[in-house]
């Protein structure tokens, strides 16, 4: 898998969350994603960027165009140096929330992606990468 383009966006305000999803939309359009696939990756980006902001205390989002043979896709990263997640398995469950939300952020973003990886530990922040192929 080869990464072609990398852009980075700060995620420290709720306006930044909007900017991240607009940047993801633009890349998805450039790659020729269908409207439904655009909407899925943008929605996943919105959930994860909000998590970076509200749970991670802010961080950054990266957008990469990735190529694997003839496949092209978007790989998004969300990284923060916040408190981290003590029980990742529990946090991935539908309905689990520590912020009074619906608890659909992580689990929903995973369902909207083709690939999903998370690394997090208390005190070490959280790194989440998702990929959606065209």
């Amino acid at each position, binding site marked *: 898998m080869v990464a072609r383009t990398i852009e980075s966006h700060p995620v420290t305000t709720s306006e930044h969350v909007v900017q991240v999803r607009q940047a993801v939309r633009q890349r998805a359009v450039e790659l020729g994603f269908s409207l439904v696939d655009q*909407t899925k990756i943008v929605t996943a980006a919105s959930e994860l960027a909000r998590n970076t902001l509200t749970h991670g205390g802010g961080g950054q989002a990266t957008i990469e165009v990735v190529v694997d043979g003839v496949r092209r896709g978007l790989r998004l990263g969300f990284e923060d140096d916040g408190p981290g997640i003590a029980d990742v398995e529990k946090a991935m469950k539908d309905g689990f929330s520590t912020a009074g939300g619906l608890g659909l952020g992580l689990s929903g973003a995973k369902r909207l992606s083709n690939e999903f990886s998370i690394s997090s530990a208390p005190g070490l922040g959280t790194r989440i990468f998702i990929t959606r192929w065209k």
Partner: protein
Amino acid sequence: MERIPILKMGGCLLVSIQVDMHDRLAMQLQDDLTARIAATGARGVLIDISALEMVDSFIGRMLGNIAAMSRVLDATTVVVGMQPAVAITLVELGMSLPGVRTALNIEQGMALLDASISAADGEDSDGRPDD
């Protein structure tokens, strides 16, 4: 501070969300709408989301909250114009907007509100004709 405009038409409040809302703007709309329902005694709220290219869990929750709060204030909320791609994504995300009434477009949404308000008035036995 930027705000989403709320229009009053007859006994209904109309909102058309035309911008990509950040979370504080969504919360502001929720607060403004609830206040306007109480101030005007509106019986119906129509929210047009046809320009929204994405509804995530936060905006979905806001729509659910508005529907619930308006119900408590004796008003019916109808969300209209959701794009098909948004509907597909929202369900896959895990949200089906329980408790939120929807219609395909503004016209059908207004018809739904009229019917809902007439039905509620009929039950009130307030002497007004139930048409």
